[in-house]
């Protein structure tokens, strides 16, 4: 059978990573097709609920990326985001969400090649992990019959 192709959502900031991904394009660096980019003004804008939504809707992996520390177009959005991810990632892990499926990185507007690496690495990594069945199961089981205690 054909190799498993993971669905990966990328939440990126407009000024660094989105621009970096543009540079990957202008440099014609090829990478895997599995990732869909959602553009945010800043990593500070990225709502952790959206990460849950992505998994809930069947994403197998998530990339979150923005400006390197000190490079935020808005001074400190990425610093706030970093704190948020420190807490949220730990909580996800504590609840048994497979944090190996969430790739955080800093990709600047000058790092077109790095973006390609980040994507390819995430895709390879998540392909090895396989489909995120446990979360999909949780999400599909919407009708709540009496459970098996």
């Amino acid at each position, binding site marked *: 059978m054909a190799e498993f192709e993971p669905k990966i959502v990328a939440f990126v900031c407009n000024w660094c990573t989105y621009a970096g991904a543009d540079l990957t394009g202008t440099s014609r660096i090829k990478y895997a097709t599995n990732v869909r980019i959602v553009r945010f003004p800043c990593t500070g804008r990225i709502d952790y609920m959206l990460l*849950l939504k992505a998994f809930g809707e069947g994403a197998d992996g998530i990339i979150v990326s923005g400006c390197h520390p000190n490079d935020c177009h808005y001074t400190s959005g990425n610093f*706030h985001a*970093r704190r948020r991810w420190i807490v949220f990632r730990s909580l996800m892990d504590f609840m048994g969400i*497979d944090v190996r499926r969430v790739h955080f990185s800093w990709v600047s507007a000058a790092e077109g090649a790095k973006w390609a690496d980040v994507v390819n690495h995430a895709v390879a990594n998540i392909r090895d992990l396989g489909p995120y069945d446990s979360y999909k199961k949780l999400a599909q089981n919407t009708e709540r019959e009496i459970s098996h205690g």
Partner: protein
Amino acid sequence: MDELRNKARELLESGAVQMVIGYEQGTGNKTRAVFVEDPVQVPRLIFDSRCVQNLAVYMTKAEVRKKGKPALVASVPVLRSLIQLAYENQIHDESLVVLGVSPDLKLIEFSNLSEIENYLKQYTLEISIRDKEILQKLENMSADERWQYWTTVLEPCFKCYACRAACPLCYCTQCTVEDNRPQWVPVASHPLGNFEWHIMRAMHMAGRCTDCEACANACPIGIPLNLLTKKIVMDMGKSFGDNGPSLTARNPMSTFRPDDKENFIN
């Protein structure tokens, strides 16, 4: 006990407050909140180790506020909640009179909130050894085991929101779960809805939770959902040196340090 009643009576008679919010004997061995407006009712007031409901929750309830300025019976966890509420602009010095009760059941009077903040310095917020062990046990599990644990534990949750209602810091007039543009969290209490509700609630408590356990005590079906907030409280301490509410220190989630340490971003 008498100290407390005398003070309550004095406050009511002098008109310093219109109401004393404290505890009375409840059903069976339970205690419950009582709102004493008439000095004659003061003898109903009690305080003992069973009085764990966090009365600070009533400070943001419209119908209670309508009754005028209250005096609030507050043990250490309640005092912490009051400080956090003050930090979040929900109460101020004039909002209430605080009848503090020390762990050894002595009455402590405070003339303002910063006195409470100072008093609390001796009780820095920290997760108990016992709880730490429970958290440790969970952290030692594999991710799959933790997933199993939480999905099973949260499965019976029917979203009565008693946890939210009992929490003094869940005072939003519209909770995110009630926001349907978009519908962030499914209304139904199916597995996904339950999971998202509890993880979101825990995140909203980050840097705010005072570990009073009101949420877990309130749960009619005994879900240990305070393990989530305890985990958060512990992380806040570990990662950002947060050690409980303060009137002045910035909330750890709405501020940052350029050298915050993290090991998962590359």
